[in-house]
């Protein structure tokens, strides 16, 4: 998993590249928390380069969402691949991350 962050127009964009699983969980949460640090802005997690998401990956996103809520902002995901979007929908968490 490699991570990159971009700040665009008051939104923090986090780009993930690699499997979002137990190995990646802590780093992803840390990156989201760093993006929230001291700044009042929404966070978007871009999943276009994530080929695999498991329950620990979902937990990472949920922890990020909790952190965003503590800061009074929103966390959304975007561009999930089909297989990743299926996991988000089957587990019922897709709407929590702004996926309709």
């Amino acid at each position: 998993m490699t991570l990159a962050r971009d700040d665009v127009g008051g939104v923090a964009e986090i780009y993930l590249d690699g499997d979002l699983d137990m190995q990646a969980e802590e780093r992803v949460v840390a990156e989201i928390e760093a993006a929230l640090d001291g700044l009042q802005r929404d966070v978007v997690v871009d999943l276009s380069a994530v080929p695999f998401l498991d329950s620990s990956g979902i937990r990472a996103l949920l922890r990020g969402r909790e952190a965003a809520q503590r800061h009074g902002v929103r966390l959304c995901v975007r561009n999930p691949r089909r297989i990743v979007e299926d996991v988000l929908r089957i587990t019922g968490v897709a709407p929590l991350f702004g996926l309709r």
Partner: protein
Amino acid sequence: MTVPRPDAWPGLLAELIENGHFVGPSGLAAIVEAATARVGLGVTIHLIDHEQERLRVLSSDPAAETIPVHASVAGRAFMTLIPVPSVGDPPRLWMPVVNGTERIGVLEVRLPPGADPAAPGTVSGARLLAGLIGHLITSKTSYGDAIAKARRSRPMTPAAELLWQLLPPLTFATDHFVLAAVLEPCYEVGGDAFDYTVDDGFARFAVYDGVGKGLPAALATAVALGASRASRRAGADLPGVAEAVDGALTSQFTDSRFVTAVLAEFDLHAGHLRYTGAGHPPPVLLRHGKVVRALAGGRRTPLGVPAPTPVADERLEPGDRILFYTDGITEARDEAGTLFGLERLVDLVERHAEDGLPVAETVRRISHAVRDHQGGPPADDATLLLLEWSEDAAHRSAP
């Protein structure tokens, strides 16, 4: 020649009941051997190990022989729940041992030379003896470690030790309903679990999968099991149970720990199923050997991520099967990366059901097929729970 004499069995059972008051797990084999020797029988208790691969003698000898289930007459008795006589010196009768319909092992009954191991009086007597021994083993297990040790081929992780103590037996049946489960890797299991109760014409059951692995996952699942049972016993309905688990998980853990689950209740007379899917793979409804549909209604977020709990309805027909599973089954991969997959899973359920096997044997074989597919014990916890609403399946579930 019928040995022992048919009238010897009641006295034998009475002696075991009397002597059974004063033994623990490590003394059980000795009182059985002593009592049966007095009527001319040699008896050995073979227990099934947790992985349901080998039968292991109940004794304190760690080097005691083991018998492979898949390639032995003892194993045939275990798999089919049908007593197997074997002519030889000595003649033997291999009698399945169950508690209720939970398969515990096999009783090896050695008869005097020349005796007929298939004599009706001998088979019926041995069935009663095995029935009593099944109850004794179950009731004595918790008073010592001897039975727990005899059933394992290697040590368990603390997470697996914790979890197994929370789970009900693998199999239960009423006269027209059978439920059987299997959980792997049995010595290292972490976050998977199943639960059920059958009361007043209703079966209530659940499959759980706690996020993560090992002890943290097992702890989350343990909290879910505790909260669901406490609320159910306080009269909660399905949404009430889900709400109680949400509350227990969010108050205990502050790190978004969750447990996916299917919670269900089944009216055993009307055939009416109600269920909720909390972030879990949907169960599959099977009828006449075909998939009718995935039970994908009643969806909500995983337990621990609070949300309203919708409940879906399904009418079952006699003979229907419902297959509950965790993703460790369908997502098991072989060396080439090929998933075990739902299609293969459903196909195996149907194939084994056609063979007329007990439901517990069907899930045992599927769990081994998953293991063989990935060339070793599952990387992720893998749980299977199969339910069949039929008198025929119930009849196949006891010796």
